């Protein structure tokens, strides 16, 4: 297992785009962790400073100031914390719920399996953001509610993925033989299914983090995210609209941050997919 990891890492290192993606993701983590030290105005991000409202980038304000006079650069850094928090917890919850459900549905046959997959189908029958809007709106705008809305709409992807992989393994003849001999499903799952599904799950998580960040930003843009003064990136863009086209930096900075971060996750995810699953030939998985 350790040598496999080393091989994966080495192959990944050869892919320049994936490496760039990894660097971006690490930079994001760094920004979030070290925000108080990297920010130029760490204590002033939620204060109101009317004198310095809507200043263009320059001088002490690296990316200008917003409508409250707060430094956008510093708010962005702290916003990175919000972004990561939302993305990681939402995707994590989706994995924790979705993967076991997929395993159960895949290993067993019958009512339970059908119910689980039907439930997944139903959740997937609505475009993710639309359902997330419905949930977030009912619950009210707050950080936990956004996370809940996102994870509630993301878990079916993992369930479907794991279900398909589990079924594929289960249908192999030697598994049928093992189970006919009385091996418990849990053992089959542990020994045979899990090693096979780890790779696609990792790829899906990486790409999912990027996608969740986009959806979270959209919810923030619509006012359904954590309320002010939390420096959430999507909400900042929504705030900026009134002041366009003059205060262009107000919209450009957070938007570009989102773009950079998501590209990072996407490149990393693509690179991981090429390395971990080079023989992916199933319909619906693009290869470059």
């Amino acid at each position, binding site marked *: 297992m350790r040598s496999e990891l080393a091989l994966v890492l080495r192959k990944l290192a050869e892919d320049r785009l994936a490496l760039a993606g990894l660097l971006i993701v690490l930079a994001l983590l760094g920004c979030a962790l070290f925000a108080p030290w990297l920010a130029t105005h760490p204590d002033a991000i939620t204060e109101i400073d009317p004198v310095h409202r809507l200043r263009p980038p320059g001088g002490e304000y690296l990316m200008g100031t917003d409508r409250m006079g707060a430094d956008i650069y510093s708010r962005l850094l702290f916003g990175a914390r919000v972004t990561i928090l939302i993305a990681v917890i939402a995707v994590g919850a989706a994995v924790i719920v979705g993967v076991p459900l997929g395993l159960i549905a895949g290993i067993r046959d019958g009512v339970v399996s059908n119910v689980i997959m*039907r*439930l997944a*189908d*139903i*959740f997937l*029958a*609505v*475009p*993710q*953001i*639309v*359902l997330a*809007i*419905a*949930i977030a*709106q*009912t*619950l009210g705008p707050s950080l936990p509610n956004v996370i809940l809305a996102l994870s509630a709409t993301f878990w079916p992807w993992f369930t479907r993925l794991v279900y398909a992989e589990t079924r594929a393994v289960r249908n192999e003849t030697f598994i049928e033989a093992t189970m006919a001999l009385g091996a418990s499903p849990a053992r089959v799952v542990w020994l045979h299914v899990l090693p096979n599904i780890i790779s696609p799950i990792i790829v899906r998580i990486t790409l999912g983090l*990027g996608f969740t960040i*986009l959806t979270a*930003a*959209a919810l923030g*843009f*619509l*006012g*359904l995210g954590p309320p002010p003064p939390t420096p959430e990136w*999507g909400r900042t*863009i929504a705030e900026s*609209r009134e002041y*366009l*086209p003059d205060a*262009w930096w107000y*919209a*450009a900075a957070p*938007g570009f941050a*989102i*773009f950079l971060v*998501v*590209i990072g996750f*996407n*490149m990393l995810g*693509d690179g991981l997919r090429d390395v971990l699953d080079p023989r992916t*030939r199933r*319909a*619906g*998985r*693009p*290869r*470059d």
Partner: protein
Amino acid sequence: MVNGKGRRPGRASTLLRSSAWWAFALRRLGWSLATVAGVVAITFLISHIIPADPAALAAGERATHEQVEALRHQLGFDRPLLTQLGDYYYRLVQGDLGKSLFTSRPISADLRSRLPATIELTVAAMFLTIVLGVPIGVLSALRRNSWLDHVVRLVTVSGLAIAGFWLAIILQLSFAMDLGWLPLGGRLPPDYPPPATITGLYLIDMLLAGDLHGFGVAAAHLALPTVTLAFPAMATIVRFTRAGMLDTLNKPFVQYERAMGLPDSIVVWKYMLRNALTSTITQIGLVAGALLGGSVVIEAVFDWPGLGYYAVNSIIMSDYNAVLGFTVWVAIIYILINVAVDVLQRLIDPRGTS
């Protein structure tokens, strides 16, 4: 396609007469009905079970205690849940989604009036996505690793990373505010009379009314929202078409067709493309869902008076029922699109992949 008009039945019409295909289509439709019922149950859960007090939610923020209680009894929130669910279904089947707090009209009427705008935008975006996306994907695959390919790959990677609402704002800034080439938003300028409603799609109605100038104006207004909405979708379609073509390039039948000297354009655009498209077509269903979802923020930014715009306003007004009604409608549209895609895919590849 070899022109065999009437001389030899094409495969499509043979299939349309095959009962197996109809059985498949019917089964898919039945499946979808069940899914719709499930989605409705979910929205019921969202509106009736998640909130602490659904009556207060429905009554709105400014309602008094008595109004909330009266509403609770009126809307039957004090009855057992299952009865409420049954009632919910019953009303939904009749098309009753409740009343909008904001417009005080039945929500389904609100939605119906705004549906054409969203259809126009979504269909235009889908059209652009396919008409541009597929050929670009094909060319990118044929010229693998050329400068064209690199540019395409760069652009598609960006397309999937850019927030739709941000792209909308940027494009609005550049093309409408800065350059003034295209209008800022809306379907038509404020004082311009809309065409007589036949389909509700302004482009078509303008043409039907013979108003070419109006057609141009409507098209200009449609341009930015369509491009913004289509951008990520195009990225996906280009990627999948490219991958499908690269896959197909190595297939033995392609080598055989080339070995027998069949003209390149036939090998690529007729024989290879159909094989490459099977995975792309699956994506079209998902792309449609992304377009529907994306239309929410795009319509908001461009003041496009469609379903998404209605939903965003309802969010601002805390009009919960309206938002849920919107959710149900979008689900139904999405499900129908997926059925159509599945059935179409069967037509193209009757071998039937799982």
